[in-house]
């Protein structure tokens, strides 16, 4: 049968245009600049230069380390809170709004400077741990929400079944609740780790020279008009982030858990 009406796909066209202008085109520019020699021709020399520079690896490792540490702390702080929220009769909407929405009303940088003042009063401003506190503070809600969603949608009968089969409270948690909430944890980890990786503004305001992230380095390169080197480093970062996401997806697929829909709030990753 021939189609008489235009497919619904046509309505996606405006979004596709916006996407091309603001996402695909800049990305292409990054790729083009990364492979451009100083004289304007195609060359691998910039990439090679970036790859052979040892200090890049050090900042990359440092970035990964800091992002991982912040993610782990977020997870350790968020899971118990999500668990309590999901299994208690409190007014959860109000508490979640308080934790998640209200901080968003204030400008992000303003919050960072406010936090800086508080940390200064405590005498720990511009230290390694101040930067970590800043990252955790900023990205905590992105860990809490997916875990909470996974736990609150978890059928209580699984825990009851485990208890029925002889598992005490701790065993029940380890053998059913925790593995069944894994999709929530994974999406929380992704949503915190990714932005932490590139959130150099936070570490700049709150941290010290030990917390200089790779993002700062890229920013400096662009400030120095070194477009090629900056783009090459950005591309490297992009590839790394994509690899991490791929691994996350693979783990998620292997764990095979289903039935507890985890919500990924829009705009999860803010690149700063």
């Amino acid at each position, binding site marked *: 049968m021939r189609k008489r009406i235009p497919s619904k796909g046509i309505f996606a066209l405006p979004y596709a245009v916006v996407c091309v202008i603001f996402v695909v085109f800049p990305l292409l520019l990054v790729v083009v600049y990364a492979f451009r020699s100083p004289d304007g021709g195609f060359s691998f020399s910039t990439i090679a230069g970036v790859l052979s520079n040892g200090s890049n690896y050090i900042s990359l490792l440092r970035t990964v380390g800091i992002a991982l540490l912040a993610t782990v702390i977020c997870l350790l702080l968020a899971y118990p809170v999500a668990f309590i929220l999901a299994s208690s009769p409190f007014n959860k909407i109000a508490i979640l709004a308080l934790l998640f929405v209200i901080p968003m009303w204030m400008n992000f940088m303003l919050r960072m400077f406010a936090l800086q003042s508080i940390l200064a009063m405590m005498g720990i401003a511009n230290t390694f741990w101040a930067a970590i506190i800043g990252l955790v503070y900023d990205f905590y809600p992105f860990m809490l929400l997916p875990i909470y969603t996974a736990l609150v949608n978890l*059928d209580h*009968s*699984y825990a*009851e*079944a*485990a*208890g*029925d*089969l*002889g*598992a*005490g409270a701790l*065993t029940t948690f380890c*053998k*059913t609740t925790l*593995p*069944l909430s*894994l999709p929530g944890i994974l999406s929380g980890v992704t949503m915190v780790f990714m932005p932490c990786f590139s959130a150099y503004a936070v570490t700049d305001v709150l941290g010290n020279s030990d917390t200089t992230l790779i993002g700062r380095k890229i920013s400096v390169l662009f400030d120095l008009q070194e477009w090629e080197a900056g783009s090459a480093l950005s591309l490297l970062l992009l590839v790394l982030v994509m690899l991490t996401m791929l691994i996350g997806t693979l783990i998620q697929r292997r*764990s*095979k*858990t*289903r*039935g507890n829909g985890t919500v990924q709030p829009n705009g999860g990753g803010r690149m700063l």
Partner: protein
Amino acid sequence: MAERTVQKTVTEENGAKGASKFDKIVEVRGVTKVFDDVTVVDNMNLSIKRGDFVTLLGPSGCGKTTLLRMIAGFATPTDGRIFLEGKDVTDLPPHKRPINTVFQKYALFPHLNVFKNIAFGLKLKRIPDVKRNRKTGEPLLDPVTGSHIEIMRKYTKAEIEEKVNRVLKLVGLEGYGYRDTTSLSGGQQQRVAIARALVLEPKVLLLDEPLGALDLKMRKEMQFELKKMHDELGITFIYVTHDQEEALTMSDKVVVVSDGVIQQMGTPKKIYDEPANAFVANFIGESNILSGEMLQDYKVRFCGADFDCEDKGFGKNERVDIVVRPEDIGVFKAGSGKGQLTGKVLSVVFKGTYYEMNITAGDYEFTVQNTDSFAVGNEVELRIKPDGIHIMKKMRTVNEIITAVDGENTVDFHGGSFPFDNPDGLEKGDRVKVRVDFDKIELTDDERDGVIGGNIGQSFYKGTYYQVQVYTDDDDDIFVDTTDEWDIDDRVGIVIRPQDLRVEKYIEPEDEAQSVPTDSEQEEAEQNA
């Protein structure tokens, strides 16, 4: 070698406990459960014999699942105790009770395959054994006393595998061990859930509407298999369902529950043949429920005719409810002289193996099932044999309340002043007993036409009239027999003619002088009964 000894120990243990010392395996004593001020289970008493297949049957929300959850340990009774083999387990958490549950929606762990689901409980279980040499498996002896050293150990991998495979075979899922539970059909998931519970060899298996999610054919098949498993394993089954047919075909004993109260318990046959009250009769199978009068022992009158029956022990001319099953009514041609009632066929529906007919006789519309069909409009005769007539005591026939005279020739009745004839010259403030027959109360559409208002609670069709429960505004209830049909929660006015209010001076019983009688006529009625 090791295996055999373990088996023996387990058997001995079971043998000792199974020595019929505790004939009642589960005992529920005065259990009440209140959720948010709503009494879901109201003072239930129940004892379950070892090895029985007991079904808790009732409409949804009647409290049967709550009772099951309390036996399993997922809910704690607000009041009362639960005993298992004579031991109080009320405060024991579920994982410490030798009871396993098959959940309504199976609750199979989605992150584990079939084998791991079934092995879940086995991996946690600890069994008694003696300390052994690691290599040879020979029991080690205590160097001081020379006896075996008793320890608790976990099942070995081989033992778990053997047990899981055996139970998989039992439920007909051999070779399914490494399948993903979510890839199985509903019936197969059901079998895994049963296997997971049975593999732990529980003393009692609880099943919470386990067949509810299956289609009809599958359900019939599983009913048969569950019954077979029960007979083979000898484990006590407590089964919850709202399906009366399921309850009647599978159980040794049926417990009919409604409004958190046990209405009747007994064998399926007894429940079907001799329902204790109108609710049970209505819930278990189709039935004709009529109102009649007991003339004397073995003689009852309804629909304007006298019948022989098999019941006795009622008061002379006592009003009773009569249950007649549709298949217990014989239909004959008019003029054959074989029936006790004459009627007219209103409708005929062929139901596969029989015809279902609606036949009016007297004021009642009988539902009749017969293998012969009669044309609509035909005059017929109906015969009911004595064993087809089941007589039940009427729950109550009169509203009774202890109250006081609150004015000149008026009496307080559920918050309203009702005028009454006052031949005894009772005065204001006198405590009185007021009685009103169910059929002497008039309900009005407009609340303002009544002395007091109320809401319609339940309504039971009694053949020629409806028995309606009306909740008055002082949170009490009265019963009204009416020919009008009312809907639940209808707002009505209540009118009683002065001559129908039977008021007499109330003399408090001496021994209860301390406790001021409340105006709960329910209690009074029960005492009278």
